[in-house]
């Protein structure tokens, strides 16, 4: 049985001259980064492709400096996150940290519970991809990263905020998604 090599082994292999190790690393994480960028920049395919490429170029450039204190995925996403923020700033679309304490939590009446419970899995998955776009950037980012297995500690480092803020964003994301999914289903 072939043992799956760790990220750090692949990185060391690449840095000592084995190009195939990088290919394996790339195959392992390309979907994660592409999905993340697609959700961060919905309907902006060319920008997503551009930032995806820039992120990997930076990863290649910075690999010799990589220390395995963090997971490689979190480290790579952080690079992608910074490039995305740079893009927002350049295009003046960056929304500053929104105070989530002042935000109203969505109500979830009992009639919506029935709709929520009655949604089948394929409907649910199809809708989830669409309603993710309706979330605020920070909430969407937290949700996507956590969905891809990045820990809250690492997300807090990526977003440069406290774990409590990240947890609150995640709660809001789940509640907003639930509400929007029901709206999507009922067509309102």
């Amino acid at each position, binding site marked *: 049985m072939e043992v799956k090599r760790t990220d750090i082994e692949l990185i060391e292999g*690449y*840095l000592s*001259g084995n*190009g195939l190790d*990088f*290919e394996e690393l*790339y195959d392992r994480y*390309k*979907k994660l980064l*592409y*999905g993340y960028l*697609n*959700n961060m920049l919905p309907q902006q395919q060319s920008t997503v*492709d551009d930032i*995806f*490429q820039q992120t*990997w*170029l930076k990863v*290649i*450039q910075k690999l010799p400096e990589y220390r395995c204190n963090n997971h490689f995925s979190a480290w790579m996403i952080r690079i992608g996150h910074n490039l995305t923020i740079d893009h927002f700033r350049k295009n003046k679309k960056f929304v500053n940290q929104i105070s989530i304490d002042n935000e109203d*939590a*969505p*109500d*979830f009446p009992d009639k919506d519970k029935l709709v929520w419970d009655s949604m089948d*899995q394929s409907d*649910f*998955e*199809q809708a*989830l*991809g669409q309603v*993710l776009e309706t979330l605020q950037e920070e909430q969407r980012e937290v*949700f*996507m990263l*956590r*969905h891809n297995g990045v*820990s*809250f500690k690492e997300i807090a480092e990526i977003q440069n905020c406290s*774990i409590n803020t990240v*947890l*609150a964003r*995640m*709660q*809001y994301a*789940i*509640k907003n*998604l*639930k509400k929007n999914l029901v709206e999507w289903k009922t067509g309102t």
Partner: protein
Amino acid sequence: MENGDLKMKSECKNYIEKILNDNAEQRDAFRAHCGECPECASLASDWKRMRNAAIPVSPVPLSLDFAVLAAADSALKRRMHRKVTIRRIIYYGAAAASVALACLVTIFPPDSTAKNHRVIARNLDWSKFDKELFETAAAIEISHHCISIAGTPDAPNQNLPVIEEEQEQF
């Protein structure tokens, strides 16, 4: 606590991270809490449903794959070339230094032993030398004299008086 209210009880805050981090620790305590707290129970079940959903992701275009892998390949080649260059500089530097050292030794050979001796003799203080020679000769003569009186360990002088050692007093 109203449904949808995020200002949860302080007790709930201890569970939020565990719920969302899929932490299996304290499962019994967590279940007991969810039995009492519909907010946490709802959050846990909603997150479970969303976590298990496969969010559709469009595939990475092949052109991007090629571009990234080509960039990685060329970066690797540059890196390897740099390594080889540094190694060559070290090897060639060491070789050049060896050749230079060999040339220096040939042109300026090291001093011979005789030459060294001449240098030592030139640096000696001859005024002190006479005095030291006299003192050494005198010391030798005195020791010869002592031997003639006391004899040698193999042939001690039997005529000398015997001095008995004193007993140590306790």
